[in-house]
């Protein structure tokens, strides 16, 4: 049974998505390994704040080249599309929790590279933009 203060604390964490924010920041830190971690964090947070104000893209670890590479692994014979199961697995592996379960091309079980890239980008933006409460 949580005390009222614990409840308050848990609510605060959830409302502002602090855990997700910290996860993202830590991943960035460990990936880029800057010489001065605090300055790096300040830059990332400023960028996040700017994107919040101007609805720009948020900083995230994966860019289009990465997404194309992932698609290339799933589709080695270059058919130009992947199956729905592959699509789901790929997005989960990239760390995107809430993605579009019904993307274009689902009926034929052929998700095109364009759709994949778009859904992945949207999902990544949603994960990074932790301020959208």
């Amino acid at each position, binding site marked *: 049974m949580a005390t009222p203060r614990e409840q*308050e604390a848990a609510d605060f964490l959830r409302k502002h998505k602090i855990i997700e924010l910290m996860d993202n920041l830590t991943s960035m830190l*460990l990936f880029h*390994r800057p010489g001065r971690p605090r300055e790096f964090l300040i830059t990332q947070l400023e960028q996040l704040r700017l994107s919040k104000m101007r609805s720009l893209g948020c900083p995230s670890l994966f860019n289009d080249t990465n997404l194309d590479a992932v698609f290339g692994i799933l589709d080695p014979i270059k058919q130009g599309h992947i199956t729905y199961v592959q699509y789901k*697995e*790929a997005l989960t592996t990239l760390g995107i929790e809430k993605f579009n379960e019904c993307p274009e091309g689902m009926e034929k079980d052929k998700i095109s590279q364009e759709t994949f890239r778009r859904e992945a980008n949207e999902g990544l933006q949603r994960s990074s933009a932790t*301020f959208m409460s």
Partner: protein
Amino acid sequence: MDATTKPLRIPPEMSIYAEEHDIYELVQSLVISLMVDKPEDPIHYLISLLKRGNFEVPKVMLLGPPFSGKTTIARKLCEHIKAIHITASNILKESTDLTKKAQEYTAKEQEIPVDIWIKLIQQRLLKIDCVRQGWVLEGIPQTHREAVSLQEAGVIPDHVVLLEAPDAVLIERSHGKRVDPITGDPDFFFYTCIDIYHVTFIWPEDNEVAHRLERQTSDSEEQGVTQLMKQHQEVTALRRTYQYCLKSIDADQPFVDVFDQVLTYVLSRHRSVAPHTPRVLLFGPPGSGKSLQAKLISQKYNTVNLCCSELLEAVCADATSMGELIKPYLESGQQVPDSMVLQILTDRLSKLDCTTRGWVLHGFPRDLEQAEKLQEANFIPSRVFFLEMTDDVVIERVSLTSVDPVTGDRYHSLYKPAPSPKVQGRLQFHPKDSEAQLLQRLKEYWANSSSLQAFYPEAVHISADQDPHTVFESLESRLVVPLPKSLPVKGENST
């Protein structure tokens, strides 16, 4: 994309980087501050928090009964760690609206209400000097209620020191307390930076000062006793409130000893739950117990135990190309060249089990050159231990060890003699342990040890002249706890 079947392999650079820059502690303190302050705009708050700078500022509460020496200790502590000294009196000396209100109460000789008092404290601690340099609260909080209100207000110390002494000693001290009236402000009721001396314990060096010392009017015996009683009532509750970061220190010792203990405690870092892969180097003269300690550590913490000589022999026995190369050296008893040893070691240390479980290495490096090469190969140890032992103990330990070839048991002529004359008869002594060779090994060790000690300035020195479990406990206590903070250097700007 079946990442679930293979374990996730995190590159070792990430864990080294994280440990080097204390990333875990950084994120942890960010989250703690967020939870305490609960700002509306966390991103903006985090940016200002990060810009503000130093996270590891001291936050100390110094508690204890009257006459235990709190003020003297607090002042000296602040000198050393460059923190701000906060007492009940200097909080009231501020000139804000809140303090004026509080002063009205004291003018009427009434007690200041707790909520105003707590707000005053909070206000003082939020000032830029406390935020930048850290603070030492002397004698605050005095009651359980104050402590709880402080917690609610978000004032949380990292270290709480509780000075303790028997009542008789304290009352005795109260008689001998003298103050230098000139350094105090005679118009103000509370004493701010008066120099406190004692007839027996701390006598001023300057004779002029000694002549003008007098007793404080407020220190009558009666008042002293009432204060003592009050403190006794509150101390159990205070102890309970701060049990996670509290340390009791016996104040009934010479001042220098008390201060040393307080300083060591305040500089220590609490055990953290940050993920940590141990990378341990063990140095020591032959017979100091390096292999035994390495074995004990590896057993308990599941690290990889690497003894350099055993590693070389294993490689040799493996009949690989490297093994062929080093075989002639091992057979003739010559030392294998550094480049080959380094190659073998780096191969072994880069294997997955070493990077994930950590390693304990002994037998390498033997000299400064090897240590530098190890560093260049980017294998940086997180702890370095020097097991210290005097030469005569080494000779006694090593030259008298022998092995029973039949059972494989090791005996020692002094500490663990053979059980029967029959066993004694067949004991064998290793030529390496003979006194002549031992002296040679010792000479080599001592020749290199000073340069190695200079190369690893943060190394811990442990006396190996004790029984193995005591040594292990000392090793462990330094292994699992983060390294203590160092004193700030004069003039260093906190970043």
